[in-house]
């Protein structure tokens, strides 16, 4: 494990809780403005797909700015539609308010786009999703909730003139479903996340992997829906923990290590969910970031965020070759790819290359900054918005 004593945890408060007045002011600050709409602020999709976009568009000089709004703000709907040139609805379920919002922009001849980062709009795939997320299929509420969720999401998507998403695979699903043009803006790291990541990366520059005598394999889960993904690597982790006493496992988030790993005692550590900035410290402390994904249409739509978040802090990733990971990671050069049956072998291979750890980590870091840093995204966003 790496020592990050020189990078203490930072006090963190989500930066997006601005009063409506301030957000309205952001909309009026520049001659051309983009209004983003989202149901309610959260730490996952909202951060990546709305807050980060707005932050980039408002950065520096220029005539285009942005702001964001929620359901609770729609008392000012007409003002928003008047002030903004374009509306982007981020992963929002259809209802009468969304319909009115779209109509307000349409009445003024303004375009409306839909941004979604998961394959959650086509009800043909509800059963696959329920199964992939290991939800309780015997609970009728699960079916009510997910059919409602996907059909409302699909209805909102179909209301829009175009779409934006995180990768080309998901974009193709959106085009096929809604018959609209869809552009890609990848997920990326914002200013705050990247600033701390850089400090972590620098703190590790003089350290060797496993310098405290242990090498840790980390699994970082941002939601409680990854039981089946994590289960894919458990047999390999058991095998490796048995054969190599240098190894430890770190499990972070809403997931349990499970009874099969509990027998390894303190070599398997569990941490609760972290805020997204300090999570970078924890990712940076482990040597390897495991990213197993089940193989299906739903998981192929996932973005590469777990790769670049690890790369930014100089931690090497080992990932399933999903559509996106297979394109993001150059096996052996910027990380490692492992098919479902290769995990034990690929982890051994990665451990065998500890001597090259820093070189691989440096390449991955450069790759992450080149493609997934906030300061490289402005043109990509503007092009996707049709403002370039």
């Amino acid at each position, binding site marked *: 494990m790496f020592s990050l004593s020189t990078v203490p945890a930072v006090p963190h408060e989500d930066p997006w809780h601005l009063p409506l007045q301030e957000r309205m002011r952001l909309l009026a600050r520049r001659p051309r403005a983009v209004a983003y709409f989202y149901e309610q602020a959260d730490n996952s999709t909202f951060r990546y797909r709305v807050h980060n976009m707005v932050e980039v568009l408002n950065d520096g000089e220029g005539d285009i700015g942005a702001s964001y709004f929620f359901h609770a703000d729609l008392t000012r709907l007409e003002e928003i539609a008047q002030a903004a040139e374009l509306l982007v609805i981020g992963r929002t379920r259809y209802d009468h308010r969304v319909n009115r919002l779209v109509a307000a922009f349409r009445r003024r001849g303004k375009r409306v786009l839909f941004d979604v980062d998961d394959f959650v709009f086509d009800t*043909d*795939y509800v*059963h*696959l999703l329920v*199964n992939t997320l290991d939800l309780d*299929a*015997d609970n009728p509420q699960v079916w009510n909730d997910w059919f409602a969720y996907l059909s409302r999401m699909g209805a909102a998507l179909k209301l829009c003139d175009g779409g934006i998403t995180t990768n080309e695979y998901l974009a193709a699903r959106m085009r096929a479903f809604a018959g609209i043009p869809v552009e890609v803006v990848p997920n990326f790291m914002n200013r705050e996340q990247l600033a701390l990541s850089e400090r972590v990366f620098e703190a590790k520059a003089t350290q060797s992997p496993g310098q405290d005598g242990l090498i840790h394999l980390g699994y970082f889960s941002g939601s409680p829906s990854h039981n089946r993904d994590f289960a*894919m690597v458990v*047999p*390999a982790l058991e*095998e490796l923990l048995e054969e190599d006493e240098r190894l430890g496992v770190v499990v972070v988030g809403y997931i349990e290590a*499970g*009874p*099969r790993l509990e027998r390894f005692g303190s070599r398997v550590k569990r941490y609760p969910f972290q805020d997204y900035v300090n999570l970078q410290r924890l990712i940076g402390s482990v040597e390897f970031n495991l990213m197993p994904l*089940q*193989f*299906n*249409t739903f998981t192929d739509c996932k973005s590469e965020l777990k790769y670049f978040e690890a790369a930014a802090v100089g931690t090497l990733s080992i990932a*399933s*070759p999903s559509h996106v990971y297979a394109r993001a990671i150059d096996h052996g050069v910027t990380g490692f790819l492992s*098919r*479902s*049956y*290769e*995990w*034990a*072998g690929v982890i051994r291979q990665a451990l065998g290359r500890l001597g090259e750890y820093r070189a691989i980590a440096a390449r991955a870091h450069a790759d992450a900054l080149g493609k997934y840093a906030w300061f490289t995204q402005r043109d990509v966003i503007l092009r996707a918005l049709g403002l370039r």
Partner: protein
Amino acid sequence: MTNLIERALRFQRRHGTRRLIREGWARVARRGRALFGVQPPGQETPLSLADIGWVSAAELAAKQAQQCTALRLFTSPRPALPRVSIVTDSINKGSLYGGVGTAVILGCLIAQRRGATLRIVTRTERAQPSGLAGVLATYGIEMSHEVEFAFAPFHDERHQLDTHEGELFLTTSWWTTAATMGSVPAADIVYLLQEDERMFYPHGDEHLRCSRVLKDPQLRFAINTRLLFDHLVASGLDNVAHHGLAFEPAFPPQVFQPRHSAGTGKRTLMFYARPHNVRNLFYFGLEVLEAAIARGVVKLDEWDIVFVGKDIPKIRLDAGRYSPRRLENLSWAEYAEFASTVDLALCLMYTPHPSYPPFDLSASGAVVVTNRFGNKQDLGGYCRNILCGDTDLEPMLGTLAQGVALACDEPQRTANFRDRRMQADWHAALAQVVDRFGTPG
């Protein structure tokens, strides 16, 4: 009680302590409700005392054949790539080679031919995926796409597996075939048949269920060995003649090859010892060995005897004076390594199928004595180091004596090994089967 504890420990190993406790409480609650006539919420009719002790006929019949419980499949839109699913009990250590290994190899090659992804569905044990990497590396098979592993235990009704139109299912036993036929059209199934599975049972319900599956006119069959194919057809399975294709297994020299033994000065005689697999004639084998020692056919100052198999009792031969070495639950690498040091093997199989051990051992340079059965009369066409004897003591002793002589006749044994006619490469061995079943439609 011992049985209950064993079952509980097995359940705990497979599913963890938490599931064990939950399952235990559920059973206690069910038992309590049955005893005291208390119903779970939602069931409004209370049981009277007269109702206690009765069971549903349908439930009882299903329980007797629970390994046939239908796979819980749901239909999903067709993905970008089609899929081939293998349905088997387990692919874990101890079961991944031999017949199960053949199923995995065939599944991989058919998936490759179809440009499909592969899914391995296991029913009794959660798969250890890393074993597959070993099989692929051993046999030089490259997979173009990801492989999925799904656990679909017949005792857990919560498992669900997605499927799509046109998915091909490769089943590996009559019960996995029955379970799959419960959920998909028989025409979408290829049944890899490596035994006359009817012979696993006395004439009774299981025999009947197995026979019904084997007779299904819609099923297609891949039959391991021409001998077995001919036997099945001769036994009246015209459907196998029409919808089946036989293949001969392969024994790559990188796995099976003669090696020199450790050098104790003695030769090694292996006995394939599986007392719980009745077709392996464990007790007849003991009788033969004991007689062979008593009559000097096998001299213990010249031969080390090694029992290889599973659940082998502590047995002494030579009227209680000689303890053979026992090797149980060998990994595949350990088995292959050991096989290459064997001089003579006694591998009995009371079915028409030659079975793998005689082939494994002869491909490793040993002389093998096995038994005749039905149309299995002579396996010299594969390798003249395989000798078949009749299943009476005197004729089998005679064949064992021939085996001893041949094992000691190095030039002849070497010549026979060199002239063997066994496939060395699975791609070639399965080419016709892959052509037939790897082409959709």
